[in-house]
């Protein structure tokens, strides 16, 4: 009579492999896969596949539940550490700039157009209302006023367009502008989950502030200087806020209009694409923060402000339109 069960024999033959994998995975999880030496690193996938095949065999030959559960758990655990965020940070970053971001932006042209129109509508309505009744100004601008209002003289306004002259805090100012704007951008993405309505409102409100400023400076005959003041960072900043809003709208449209795909699948795909767009917007806002916080305070003439601001914007638009076309 054969004394040993087939499944017992199977276990005796393979157990060494499993134990080795168990140790290796434990080490990889404690201190990261990178810390494994070369030999272990080449051993890991081999052991993982051998154990996976053990699991398949065990399911067919063994009724030992502890053994089956053990193999199941070991395979799942090894799978999780073998297939993680695999790519290297540098190649991820390269791929992000080379094609992931521009392709995601081009694919989202519809929400981008909608967000841009909504912001434009906000600008125009605030401008129109404020030009006809300056008392609206305060409610549109709010805390961003910083002493600029209809009681200011043109000289005072001109002075504020020239920059504060307080050059000691430029870095902090740029950092503040960036973190505030990036916060708004990421919020308008996340608010897209609430069917996009708060995103639309936020984008519209961003436009309102701009429109009220326009009306103020127009009424004091400073439209050109104001345009220069705004041009150096405005195109970049407003573009990224539009992109962030568009990302939120993309999220909302995945919830509302899933089409033929299951809603969860559509949402997971569009959500990730939208996150790529928001990251692009945040990086642009960093650039805008530098332009606004440092460039605007050091470059005081209107013409160079125009030139720098719009050429940066042109480069950004060209990048989004042209980059990554060869991919796929």
């Amino acid at each position, binding site marked *: 009579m054969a*004394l*040993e*069960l*087939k*499944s*017992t024999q199977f*276990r005796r033959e393979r*157990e060494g492999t499993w*134990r080795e994998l168990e140790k290796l995975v434990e080490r990889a999880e404690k201190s*990261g896969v990178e810390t494994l030496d070369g030999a272990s690193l080449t051993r890991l996938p081999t052991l993982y*596949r051998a154990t*996976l*095949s053990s*699991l398949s065999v065990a399911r067919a*030959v*063994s*009724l*030992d539940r*502890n*053994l089956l559960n*053990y193999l*199941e*758990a*070991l*395979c*799942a*655990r090894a*799978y*999780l*550490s073998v*297939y993680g*965020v*695999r790519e290297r940070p540098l190649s991820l970053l390269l791929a992000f700039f080379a094609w992931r971001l521009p392709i995601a932006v081009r694919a989202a042209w519809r929400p981008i157009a909608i967000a841009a129109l909504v912001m434009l509508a906000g600008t125009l309505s605030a401008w129109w209302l404020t030009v006809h009744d300056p008392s609206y100004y305060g409610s549109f601008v709010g805390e961003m006023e910083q002493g600029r209002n209809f009681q200011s003289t043109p000289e005072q306004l001109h002075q504020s367009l020239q920059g504060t002259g307080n050059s000691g805090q430029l*870095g*902090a100012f*740029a*950092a503040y502008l*960036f*973190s505030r704007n990036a*916060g708004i951008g*990421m*919020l308008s*993405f*996340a*608010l897209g*989950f*609430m069917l996009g309505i708060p995103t639309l409102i936020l984008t519209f409100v961003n436009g309102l502030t701009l429109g009220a400023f326009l009306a103020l400076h127009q009424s004091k005959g400073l439209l050109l200087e104001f345009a220069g003041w705004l041009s150096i960072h405005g195109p970049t900043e407003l573009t990224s806020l539009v992109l962030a809003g568009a990302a939120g709208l993309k*999220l909302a449209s*995945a919830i509302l209009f899933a089409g033929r795909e299951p809603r*969860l*699948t559509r*949402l*997971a795909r569009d*959500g*990730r*694409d*939208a*996150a*790529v767009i*928001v990251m692009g917007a945040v990086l642009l806002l960093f650039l805008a923060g530098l332009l606004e916080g440092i460039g605007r305070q050091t470059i005081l003439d209107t013409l160079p402000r125009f030139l720098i601001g719009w050429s940066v914007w042109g480069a950004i638009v060209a990048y989004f339109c042209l980059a990554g076309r060869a991919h796929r």
Partner: protein
Amino acid sequence: MTDAALSPLPGDKAMRSVVTPEGVAVHIRLATIGERFSALLIDLVILFVALIALAIVSRFIGGNFGAAAYILILFLLRNFYFAGFELAWNGRTPGKRMTSLRVINRRGGPLTPAAVIARNLMREVELFVPLTLAFSGAITAAMGLSVGWIWLVALVWVGVLACLPIFNRDRLRAGDLIAGTWVVAEPRPVLLPDLAETAPGGSWATQEVADYSFTTTQLDVYGVKELQVLEDVLRSNGPAQGDVRRDIAQRIARKIGVEPPIPNDLETTRFLEAFYAAQRRRLEAEMSFGRRRRDKFDRPAGRVSRTPTRSG
């Protein structure tokens, strides 16, 4: 592509199967709401301590550089604490690590950075904005102003989003929904000794105490389910195990029609282990012929199934 990974297993509502790129389905347990909440609490405490430390350090540095660095680090901590750790540690934050949780891709591929960022940007709306609202509401209330509607908005907001994981069977929060991720419990592999090997039944021919043997008919009474229940009984060592084992040994003996063992702990255990080994040998042998008997109500393992339509 079908979302096959989304289908729950028939047995356990919290188990999900993920098909690895090698084509083998492995089963992973979803994290419970409680586990996730404690992971979040740990992370929030760490974040809070880090923010306080940052504020203190920036006081000492001061100046333009200090202020700029403070604002930037504050921004990064607040927005990228979770995403940064999940990227660096393969879907784990310090809190998740301490509670043995992990974020994985629902479809079974690698966890992409875009997914990590998407799921964590959502925290702003799920967590930070409602917290700030509630907080500012508390401050305004402390100043004696009416804040009824702020509280209401915050409450509804927190309520709807915080309860989202309770209302779907995959326990997805809004961030998991848009990123296509699951939060799962890290599986813990524990391999115990093989009962059929340690049991005296495994080598009974060489030992004089081996006086339990079973016929094929007796071994055809039970199925896989009963075998595995017996395995659980033999593996557990609770205080009342002696009584449980005696009871089960009596029932098995009565059912298969053999003399019950002497009702002491040693004999009972030996009887059960011998029966386990014999039963497993029988069922595994049948299984290798493609006949798997699920439980005692299944058709007998030994006989070829009759097809009633042809029997006529």
